[in-house]
């Protein structure tokens, strides 16, 4: 009797394990399928993707990967904007990022920012890059204003893909962290979703409604992290990038 029960128990355990395996494989297939479908829209063939998947599977991917180099310039620009926004020296009397001169003199100028964050670039190239990503605009011949505090990738396929890869990596990282976190409610990293079926028109209204909120949350998060990272007592500590990423989606 005891023997029969033990056998049944181990059979149940085997069944549960194989069932978990089936679910895991189905989810892995779905994840790979979603990635493959997106990569195909960027012009990669099924055969090439199989080859790339085999290559990726064979070696350990490093944290310093392809997206880092593609996004490096955008990150330099984001850091430049951060300083322009957050450093009191670069604000005008109303508290907003000041219109900066393109003069070569020491002190507050766009030239100084460009040299700090793009040491190998000419100021003209930095200006062109800023205009292309719609964050700055020229005022007359010798001044420049910040018109957006977020580097926009819209319409730029390689940058969007690199941004996507980084986002997926971050999302997977948060998922992994939460998988290992304890059962206490506040041990995991926040990961929330709101989802309801709506019409095209309602969706457009929703985007209009939520855009300023999203921008504010990102600005608040950025300010908190930036100010804390600048404090002298934190400067020497071992640091890893952290942040908040928000996006609107439609299935």
């Amino acid at each position, binding site marked *: 009797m005891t023997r029969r029960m033990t056998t049944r128990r181990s059979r149940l355990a085997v069944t549960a394990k194989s069932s978990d395996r089936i679910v895991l494989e189905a989810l892995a297939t779905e994840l790979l399928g979603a990635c493959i479908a997106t990569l195909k829209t960027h012009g990669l063939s099924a055969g090439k993707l199989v080859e790339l998947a085999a290559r990726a599977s064979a070696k350990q991917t490093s944290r310093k990967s392809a997206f880092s180099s593609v996004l490096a310039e955008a990150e330099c620009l984001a850091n430049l904007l951060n300083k322009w926004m957050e450093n009191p020296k670069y604000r005008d009397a*109303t*508290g*907003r990022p000041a*219109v900066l001169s393109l003069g070569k003199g020491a002190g507050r100028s766009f030239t100084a920012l460009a040299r700090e964050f793009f040491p190998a670039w000419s100021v003209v190239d930095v200006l062109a890059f800023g205009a292309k990503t719609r964050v700055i*605009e020229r*005022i007359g011949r010798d001044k420049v204003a910040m018109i957006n*505090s977020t580097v926009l990738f819209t319409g730029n396929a390689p940058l969007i893909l690199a941004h996507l890869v980084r986002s997926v990596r971050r999302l997977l990282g948060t998922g992994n962290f939460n998988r290992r976190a304890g059962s206490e409610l506040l041990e995991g990293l926040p990961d929330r979703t709101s989802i309801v079926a709506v019409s095209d028109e309602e969706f457009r209204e929703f985007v209009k*409604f939520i855009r300023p909120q999203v*921008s*504010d949350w990102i600005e608040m998060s950025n300010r908190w992290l930036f100010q804390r990272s600048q404090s002298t007592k934190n400067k020497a500590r071992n640091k890893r990038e952290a942040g908040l990423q928000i996006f609107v989606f439609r299935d």
Partner: protein
Amino acid sequence: MGRNGKAALARAAMSAVEPLVELFLELGVTSPEAESLLRSVFVHKARQWLANSSATTADPSDVRVSLVTGVHRNFVRRILAEPPGIAAAREQKGHPAGRVLEAWHSDPKYLDSSGKPRDLSEKDQEPSFHTLVLEHLPGASPGMVLAELHRAGLVQLLSEHRLRVRNRSFRMQGINPGNINEMGAQARELLETLTHNLRRPDAPRFCDSTRSIEIDAGRLPIIRDLIARRTGTFLTAIEQELTMLAGSVRSRRAGKRIRVGLTAVETER
């Protein structure tokens, strides 16, 4: 009264009304709004005048008021249903420059990536204030519109001929009857909430504050700008959420209605 008599009366009335028109202009009251106000006062006064001069105690009929005032009886009925004031239909049209402010806050061309109105060049750089006016208030001179908006305190002139919008709707800033009236209403609302919370601690209305934080006075513009932008976004969002909630509740059950609002106030000491 003959034609000459009416002309003399019109001249005399003009002298009397001119200072009032000046005041209206200063307060941003438009001609259609002033006309609507005058018509409303005219109709209400006519009814009172007819009642005083009548031998009976009954109120004069709408038809009689209509005959005396020259206003159609349907309008008389509508006007007398409310206290004297500017008709809602006229008031909604508001100041023409209000269309420029509204477009500045909603036309994607004039918004930044966060969906908020961006600073504009006066005319040299596109998108410019000049184009904004030409597109949304055709026929108006951009320079005149700018002067009017600046006078009302609704547009801030920045360096390098750049402009920043400060409000979505046209309302004169400063000490004027409209703003004093609103100040009174806001003070009353705050006191009502505080009094309610003292009397009914079991069912309090929301009333909370941040801790006062001491800052360098030189950083005040930054802090004011931050509070204005952050709180403005939040209030817009909560207003939309409340409106949606109110709409969905109304369709299900009718009953006593209560007006609910949220006011945010910056304090400095």
